[in-house]
């Protein structure tokens, strides 16, 4: 009797998980894959095949955009790590008590604010009549307004800003757990700052670095707002292509193929990152 009720309880707990995963995650992706294999041969007539994928590979604009999105996202990830690491180290190791809490909170606040608002802030700063341009004119550094928006540098600024917190927060968490005495021991044994960073700090922070990089890369790759708003109409971001196939052109077959390619790319890079660093998804993401 007792084992019967516990079995019932188990099934009742399992059901929501299975329903959620099946109807909202697994089946939709399978469905999307099936749609991506549909070739339109006439009105309401379809055949199965890889024609949509062939369209992608035969049209340079499509795969150029794809490669560009990947390349820009990887660059953004590196920049975020490079800028964020010293900050995380400062918060985790060089401050304590109230200062530490305050700095950490200051990092978190922009992360809570809508991405749209953050991007909007950068638009006000960078546009031709914006704050930066006006300030430069006021300071006498330039005589005419400068347009800082609608180029790759603007997109990069926005991407790094948007994802910074997703890098800093896991880094602070892992660096916090590094015992200070290990660093001191490194110095006692005659290590230089650089060798200690390389041999003690970075290896210890690796789970944080990997999970930060994965999240930042994913967010950049799947970002839509920042490239469209800061990069202007010609910003060429792959999610923009997916959106236009779905909503503007109503070509769901090609859009699904694009979606699947993006998903494939992101999974591949996440997989490679996990393999190269010897981490696992459960360990890094399921914190």
């Amino acid at each position, binding site marked *: 009797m007792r084992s019967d009720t516990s079995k019932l309880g188990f099934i009742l707990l399992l059901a929501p998980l299975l329903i959620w995963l099946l109807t909202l995650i697994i089946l939709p992706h399978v469905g999307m894959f099936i749609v991506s294999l549909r070739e339109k041969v006439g009105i309401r007539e379809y055949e199965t095949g890889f024609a949509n994928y062939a369209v992608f590979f035969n049209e340079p604009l499509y795969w150029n955009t794809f490669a560009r999105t990947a390349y820009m996202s990887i660059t953004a990830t590196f920049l975020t790590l490079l800028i964020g690491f010293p900050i995380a180290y400062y918060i985790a190791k060089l401050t304590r008590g109230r200062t530490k809490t305050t700095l950490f909170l200051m990092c978190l606040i922009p992360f809570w*604010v809508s991405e*749209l608002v953050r991007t909007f802030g950068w638009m006000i700063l960078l546009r031709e009549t914006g704050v930066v341009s006006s300030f430069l004119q006021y300071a006498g550094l330039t005589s005419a307004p400068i347009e800082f928006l609608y180029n790759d540098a603007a997109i990069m600024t926005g991407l790094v800003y948007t994802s910074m917190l997703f890098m800093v927060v896991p880094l602070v968490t892992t660096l916090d757990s590094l015992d200070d005495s290990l660093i001191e021991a490194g110095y006692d044994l005659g290590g230089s700052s650089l060798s200690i960073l390389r041999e003690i700090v970075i290896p210890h922070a690796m789970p944080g670095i990997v999970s930060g990089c994965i999240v930042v890369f994913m967010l950049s790759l799947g970002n839509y707002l920042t490239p469209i708003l800061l990069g202007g109409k010609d910003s060429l971001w792959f999610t923009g292509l997916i959106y236009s196939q779905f909503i503007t052109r109503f070509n769901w077959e090609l859009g699904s193929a694009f*979606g699947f390619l993006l998903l494939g790319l992101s999974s591949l890079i996440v997989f490679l990152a996990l393999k190269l660093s010897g981490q696992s998804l459960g360990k890094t993401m399921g914190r």
Partner: protein
Amino acid sequence: MITTIPQSTAFRWTYRAYVTLFFIYLALPLVTVCVFAFNDSVFPSLPWDGFTWDWFFGTETPRIGVFHERPILRSIVTSGVVAFWVSGLSVIVGTCNAFLFVRHDFRGKNLLYILMLLPLIIPGIILGISILVFSSSIANTLEEATGLWFDGLRPGLILVVLGQFSFITTFATLVISARLQKFDSSLEEAALNLGASKWGAIRQVTLPFLFPAMLAAAVVAVLMSFENFNTTLMLVGSDAPLTVTMFDRLKLGSTPVLNAVSLLLIVVSAVLGLLSLLLKRED
């Protein structure tokens, strides 16, 4: 603080300057957005034309403030309704998941755990389109078979809620599991020894212990739902939530009314964010 480590004064000051610059960079866009909400001009840009409350309380065109701007108020209500359902659903499912993963051992547990984490690494826009494609094909099949209309499966608020729920549940599961792992199960056993039923012990002992984490998960879910854009954009019908409405406005050209909305959003998100931290601190 590591005080024993030798560092040159120059290095220390460079480091501090770098950290200061970083925090200026973090604050700059948000501060700018807030400041321009009070600029007495119809564009959110320089020159500064003086201070005004018009973008909050103005009633005449072109200076209709947020509190009199119907479409924006309506989209805030829409966002609120969506956030309510997303947060409720994801906390319920998240709590079940937490009990399942923390308390039970079964075949395929690891696989299910990895599947549960997947929404973290699927781009939001792809979650959106896959749900869009899937629900439309079901709607088409059902409509052909029955001749009835299934509007709930077409882009609209139900799909927006489901789309956001699909990935926010993962976050809720992680937050609630973390707290459940810290639960001392001898407390529950004590309740059982004292004659409580299994469900009674969970309701009287375990759930009150979990409550702060559930509330924190709910607050985080509301925040994430409010600010979500990518998934929502693909599933939105005629009633647009706030972020989509603001995006449409931004594409047309912005007025300081958007700064005023943004300022309100910043304040509300900061308050909710701090609240979720306070709740988690009870751990």
